């Protein structure tokens, strides 16, 4: 193919192929900088990353393909590689050449993949990575002999330090000039094993010894007792950081969004436009941006632990435990993250290779008690559970809160156990996990990965969250009822809410939720809490015309509220218990639903998650209401 036809045909397309942990992503970032486009392959949830590079005036498009051990696919990730290389995906034309990353330290295994890739007959050049590590471990590979034995160009590189990149860049624009093997490696097993042994004896001058630092660290990290303790410590810290560090940032964002709204309201003439901009758009944008601290923090920690090499060890330590509920070690981190918020938790399931186990983890993660439930629990427990101590040291309120956390976790484990036997069945993916040597991740790589994840969240889930927030604003503000002259503003807001579409839906819902002990006011709160669980607190405050400033006033108002027909309190112990239990189970969170939609690429799974959790919530609340009523009446 001449240079002229290449120029008219657009950039030269290069596929980046290699096994997991072979330095593929580092090389991708070194070649393309931070300009990767992240998306999904059509029809599957496999991440698609492409980046451009300009070398000697030639435009290159580098396609970072998922890490693979073999071209016979078991998982959807691997299937994507096979399909891209076979030109079976219309949106991704087959690459003009392949850059194959091979970890120099594991060449004895990686040559198997090399043989498979060479047999494709596409121009291939090999980037032999981690050559610095190989040398440090006393190993030696003869690059010239390797190139001669395979018949393709071989370049030794150290991606994060830029070593060998110049030589590689000079090769990249001309895949048509790369040498091709005169004879393809054999495919018949016996012949292939012979080929492998003969290449290795020629090129592997000295086998690398064990990595001493990795051996030393693993003596502690993988120790049956110390390793388990360390795992527990890392997970507690992980959870604490996401929970404690993100909260101030989230409060700051909340405050800033509120202030921006007020400033906008002051600047605009009062009316529908101002209400829409402040309560609909600004609040909606705020409800997206407020997740950013958690997402940034979560992905920084996840990628750091992954790149250092700890994540695989953590999965190893906890695999037995997770295996009991049909999941594997890597699901643990996602479930733990969901304690802070299900949105980052669901995004953390990307580390689980088996699609079915990933799906089960996604479906149960909303059951972990997220931080948005806390304001609801705090209001109800504060108002109705007496602040007494049991046996002199345990606060009853704290015990009830702990009980709610435990109920959520138990339900998640139970649901995982059931779902992995139904939804997750027929999973052909065997469990295997490579423990890479410990490595210090380059900060640039970490930053690029975190930035990519945050941008993807804003674009994919953010748009839906914003849309639903605006829709809920419409339901809560239309039709509009003008307040009679002289009515206090709090009272006017209450009337407007009762007359709104959401208020009417609340009334219409009453027969359905009455068996749970809920009246129409709680119904409106449940509808509003679809935006985010904690919104029910603000909505109840509006219904009870309680001032937002005084947290105690809402507590008093709901304590004092009585049913106008019977004269009995609305919030009986049975109703409070039932509402608490409802919030343990129900998926009252459009952000979570939007994230599930984006992460599974289908409406089916968010609908299923919403449905089964609503059914669970309804059943559990109904039972709770009955049982508590029987004991308290």
């Amino acid at each position, binding site marked *: 193919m001449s240079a002229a036809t290449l120029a008219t045909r657009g950039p030269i397309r290069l596929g980046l192929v290699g096994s997991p942990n072979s330095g593929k992503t580092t090389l991708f970032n070194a070649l393309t900088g931070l300009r990767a486009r992240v998306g999904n392959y059509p029809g599957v949830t496999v991440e698609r990353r492409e980046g451009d590079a300009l070398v000697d005036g030639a435009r290159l498009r580098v396609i970072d393909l998922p890490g693979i*051990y*073999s071209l*016979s696919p*078991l998982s959807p990730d691997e299937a994507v590689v096979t399909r891209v290389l076979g030109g079976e995906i219309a949106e991704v034309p087959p690459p003009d050449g392949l850059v194959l990353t091979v970890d120099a*330290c*594991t*060449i*004895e*295994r990686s040559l*198997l*993949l090399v043989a498979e890739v060479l047999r494709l007959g596409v121009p291939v050049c090999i980037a032999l990575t981690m050559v610095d590590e190989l040398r440090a471990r006393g190993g030696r590979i003869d690059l010239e002999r390797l190139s001669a034995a395979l018949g393709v160009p071989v370049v030794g590189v150290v991606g994060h330090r830029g070593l060998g990149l110049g030589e590689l860049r000079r090769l990249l624009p001309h895949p048509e000039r790369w040498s091709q093997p005169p004879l393809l490696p054999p495919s018949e*097993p016996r012949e292939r*094993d012979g080929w*492998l042994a003969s290449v290795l004896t020629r090129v592997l001058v000295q*086998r*690398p010894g064990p990595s001493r630092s990795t051996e030393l660290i*693993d003596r502690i990290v*993988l120790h*049956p*007792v110390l*390793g*388990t303790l360390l795992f527990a410590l890392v997970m507690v810290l992980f959870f604490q950081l996401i929970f404690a560090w993100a909260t101030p940032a989230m409060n700051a964002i909340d405050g800033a969004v509120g202030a921006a709204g007020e400033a906008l309201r002051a600047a605009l003439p009062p009316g529908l436009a101002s209400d829409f901009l402040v309560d609909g758009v600004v609040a909606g944008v705020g409800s997206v941006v407020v997740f950013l601290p958690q997402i940034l923090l979560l992905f920084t920690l996840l990628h750091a632990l992954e790149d250092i090499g700890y994540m*695989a060890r953590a999965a*190893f*330590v906890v*695999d*037995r435990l997770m*295996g009991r509920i049909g999941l594997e070690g890597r699901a643990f981190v996602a479930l733990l993250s969901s304690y802070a918020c299900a949105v980052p938790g669901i995004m953390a399931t990307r580390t689980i290779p088996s699609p079915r186990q990933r799906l089960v983890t996604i479906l149960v993660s909303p059951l972990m008690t997220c931080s948005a439930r806390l304001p609801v629990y705090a209001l109800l427990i504060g108002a109705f559970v007496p602040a007494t101590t049991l046996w002199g040291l345990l606060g009853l309120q704290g015990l009830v809160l702990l009980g709610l956390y435990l109920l959520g976790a138990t339900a998640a484990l139970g649901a995982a156990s059931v779902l992995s036997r139904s939804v997750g069945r027929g999973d*052909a993916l*065997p*469990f*295997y*996990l*490579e*423990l*890479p040597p410990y490595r210090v991740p380059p900060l640039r790589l970490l930053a690029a990965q975190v930035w990519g994840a945050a941008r993807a969240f804003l674009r994919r889930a953010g748009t839906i969250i914003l849309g639903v927030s605006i829709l809920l604003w419409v339901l809560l503000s239309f039709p509009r009822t003008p307040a009679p002259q002289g009515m206090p503003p709090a009272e006017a807001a209450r009337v407007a809410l009762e007359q709104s579409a959401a208020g009417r839906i609340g009334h219409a819902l009453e027969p359905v939720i009455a068996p749970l002990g809920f009246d129409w006011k709680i119904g409106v709160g449940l509808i509003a809490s679809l935006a985010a669980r904690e919104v029910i607190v603000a909505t109840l405050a509006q219904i009870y015309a309680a001032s937002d400033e005084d947290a105690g006033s809402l507590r008093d108002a709901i304590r004092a509220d009585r049913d106008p027909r019977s004269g009995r309190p609305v919030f009986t112990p049975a109703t409070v218990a039932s509402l608490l239990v409802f919030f343990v189970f129900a998926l009252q969170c459009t952000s979570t639903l939007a994230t599930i939609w984006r992460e599974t690429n289908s409406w089916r799974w968010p609908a299923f998650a919403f449905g089964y959790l609503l059914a669970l919530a309804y059943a559990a609340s109904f039972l709770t209401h009955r049982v508590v009523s029987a004991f308290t009446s």
Partner: protein
Amino acid sequence: MSRFVPLSDLPVGGRGIVVALDAKPALAARLTALGFLPATEVRCRRRAPFGDPRVYELRGSQLCLRRSEARSVLVELA
């Protein structure tokens, strides 16, 4: 004790030479891709709490397998 045992029976610190794979085609193909070729030396390095999974060292890499998968690899004690 027979010289031929499933990999899952290899004690921690023990060495074996891969003799054959006794698994369904998909698993056998994957184990091959992971380096379990005939005549490959495998060492059992560590076990997780409660004994499962285990870490094996072969062909320059450390690989963690559950008992259910390691059972499919037949090794000759070395």
